[in-house]
């Protein structure tokens, strides 16, 4: 199955935002049983469950949530390439959370203030994402301004994921926000957190020919296919199975 071919702007927007939440939720879920400490495992699971709740609402606006999650091919997913990036070490996960949660919080604050189709969801999600953002900022500061080892790893992670951040501010059909203003606010916030964390602001390009980011068009990075296979295999092996 591919994405519905008769996409209205509201449907394509729900798919884009819903896929972001679904894919990141699955990535965070991969930490279960592997997180550095029990307390942090619960924190990551909480964030994953918040995102899964958002994904269910959003995908239900676009069609049947289970069909969309479990039966679409890789090229039909509309999520940002940032959220599908592998967990890596804990620093990579935190850098991904910092970049994405800051964006998602700023975006949902705008959507909640509007009167579009996403306003009711955004009003609830903005509180959840405020906590996700705080969690990522707290850890970024501690890892950056921590030991030599944690600082090195955090700098490496922030730099590695930097090229995926420009895609967040590309216009999405049906999402009525000012991308340039969103990006300026995101950049100021992330730069401030990195400065407090004594980390370097990455220098590489975030937009243009040499950057990554065509997830919204259905082009995904190598590891996404493997993630999807794991996420979908149960449903595909046992169609219609339920608890």
């Amino acid at each position, binding site marked *: 199955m591919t994405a519905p071919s008769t996409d209205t702007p509201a449907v394509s927007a729900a798919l884009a935002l819903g896929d972001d939440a679904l894919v990141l939720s699955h990535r965070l879920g991969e930490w279960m049983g592997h997180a550095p*400490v029990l307390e942090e495992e*619960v924190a990551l699971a909480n964030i994953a469950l918040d995102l899964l709740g958002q994904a269910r609402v959003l995908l239900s606006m676009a069609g049947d949530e289970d069909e969309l999650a479990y039966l679409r091919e890789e090229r039909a997913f509309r999520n940002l390439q940032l959220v599908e990036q592998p967990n890596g070490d804990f620093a990579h996960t935190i850098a991904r959370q910092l970049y994405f949660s800051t964006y998602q919080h700023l975006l949902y604050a705008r959507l909640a203030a509007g009167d579009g189709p996403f306003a009711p969801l955004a009003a609830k999600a903005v509180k959840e994402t405020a906590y996700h953002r705080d969690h990522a900022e707290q850890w970024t500061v501690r890892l950056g301004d921590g030991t030599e080892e944690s600082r090195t790893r955090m700098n490496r992670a922030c730099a590695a994921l930097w090229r995926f951040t420009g895609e967040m501010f590309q216009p999405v059909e049906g999402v009525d926000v000012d991308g340039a203003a969103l990006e300026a606010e995101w950049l100021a916030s992330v730069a401030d957190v990195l400065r407090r964390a004594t980390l370097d602001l990455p220098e590489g390009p975030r937009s243009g020919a040499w950057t990554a980011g065509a997830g919204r068009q259905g082009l995904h990075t190598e590891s996404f296919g493997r993630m999807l296979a794991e996420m979908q295999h149960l449903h595909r092996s046992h169609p219609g199975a339920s608890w």
Partner: protein
Amino acid sequence: MTTTDWPLWEVFVRSRRGLSHTHAGSLHAPDAELALRNARDLYTRRGEGVSLWVVPSAAITASSPDEKDPFFEPAADKPYRHPTFYEIPEGVQHL
């Protein structure tokens, strides 16, 4: 799970306005700010609270089980300490 040398914190939750904070459990965290966030995730995720305290476990001075008798036993046979020998005037509520 690897072990960490993070200190232990005691968590107190106020379940609603007007009630006092009650001990809910303990957790590990590197500092107070993260202890508060871990407490939020571990003890209030099902709507259990409106306010949280975290206290370093090391800051708590506890009575020792060895001292149980000298501490608590003498109170057992002194019923006159209980305020039960008074006539309650009529009309007094909430006593």
